[in-house]
């Protein structure tokens, strides 16, 4: 029986955010050091950043998680997915998404990505809960 392919991942973001979030994921899940590779854009040219992410993600299959959907990190990530279906970008990452990835990286990419999007969106909430209704109304009034 074939061993499942373990997906690779990069967390690409601003400042100390990637290292900090990956450290938190390792602390919570005990996942191996290489499960998610943190890459910061601090002090990096677009070409150097592209090379660092490319080196970490290889040819995939894998996921590049980014903090923002656009800007230097989002752009580098989306550029690397051009012309390949083996690498996916998930932006607006949060800790529940990364934890779920670390625990389920043997799943096929096409099954795991929708699962992670659902987990990440569901993780956003607030207390008191009635303010969430206000957010829904604000969204529908946009």
């Amino acid at each position, binding site marked *: 029986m074939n061993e499942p392919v373990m997906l690779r991942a990069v967390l690409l973001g*601003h400042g100390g955010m990637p290292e900090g979030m990956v450290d938190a994921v390792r602390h919570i899940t005990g996942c191996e050091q290489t499960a998610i590779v943190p890459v910061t854009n601090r*002090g*990096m*040219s*677009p*070409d*150097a950043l592209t090379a660092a992410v490319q080196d970490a993600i290889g040819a995939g299959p894998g996921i590049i998680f980014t903090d*923002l*959907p*656009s*800007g*230097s990190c*989002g*752009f580098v990530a*989306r*550029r690397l997915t*051009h012309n390949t279906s083996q690498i996916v970008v998930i932006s607006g990452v949060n800790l529940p998404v990364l934890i779920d990835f670390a625990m389920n990286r043997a799943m096929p990419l096409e099954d795991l990505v929708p699962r992670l999007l659902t987990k990440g969106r569901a993780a956003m909430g607030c207390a008191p809960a009635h303010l969430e209704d206000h957010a829904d109304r604000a969204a529908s009034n946009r």
Partner: protein
Amino acid sequence: MPIVLHRIDERLIHGQVVVGWGGQLHPDRIVVVDDDLAGSSWEQELYSLGLPPEIMAEFASVRNARERIPKWRISRERVIMLTRDAATMAALARGGLLAGEEINVGGLHHSPGRRQALPYVYLSDAEEDALRELAASGADVSARDLPATRPVTLDQLLQDGTAH
């Protein structure tokens, strides 16, 4: 309305430009001058993802931009003009087209062949020459990543890494 910011920033449309400078200058349009991007619609789409709906993005070749700079200057729109490197800005400025304008060096980061001048500015010999060419054309060149930071003059910038 004059062009409110001329900036050299290899990240082009990103947080510092849209939020940092955009929050102060309230641009209506960001013009990216770049021969490669002017011919790449999918990359234009990627860069445009970073803009709020009230700011338009436009991508122009150097040649096209040189023709249109006089129109942008008298337009009612507030325009930010970006290039990803010093050579492109120098090409725009040739013949004194940007004489008297402030040119903001906003972000050229670490890569092979560049020396650090500031935490956010690394320059190769060719890039230093391009900045000198800009200054010789009459432009006022200084480095500043965000509006709240202290501007660094070109002379300070070229003093072999002593500007920071």
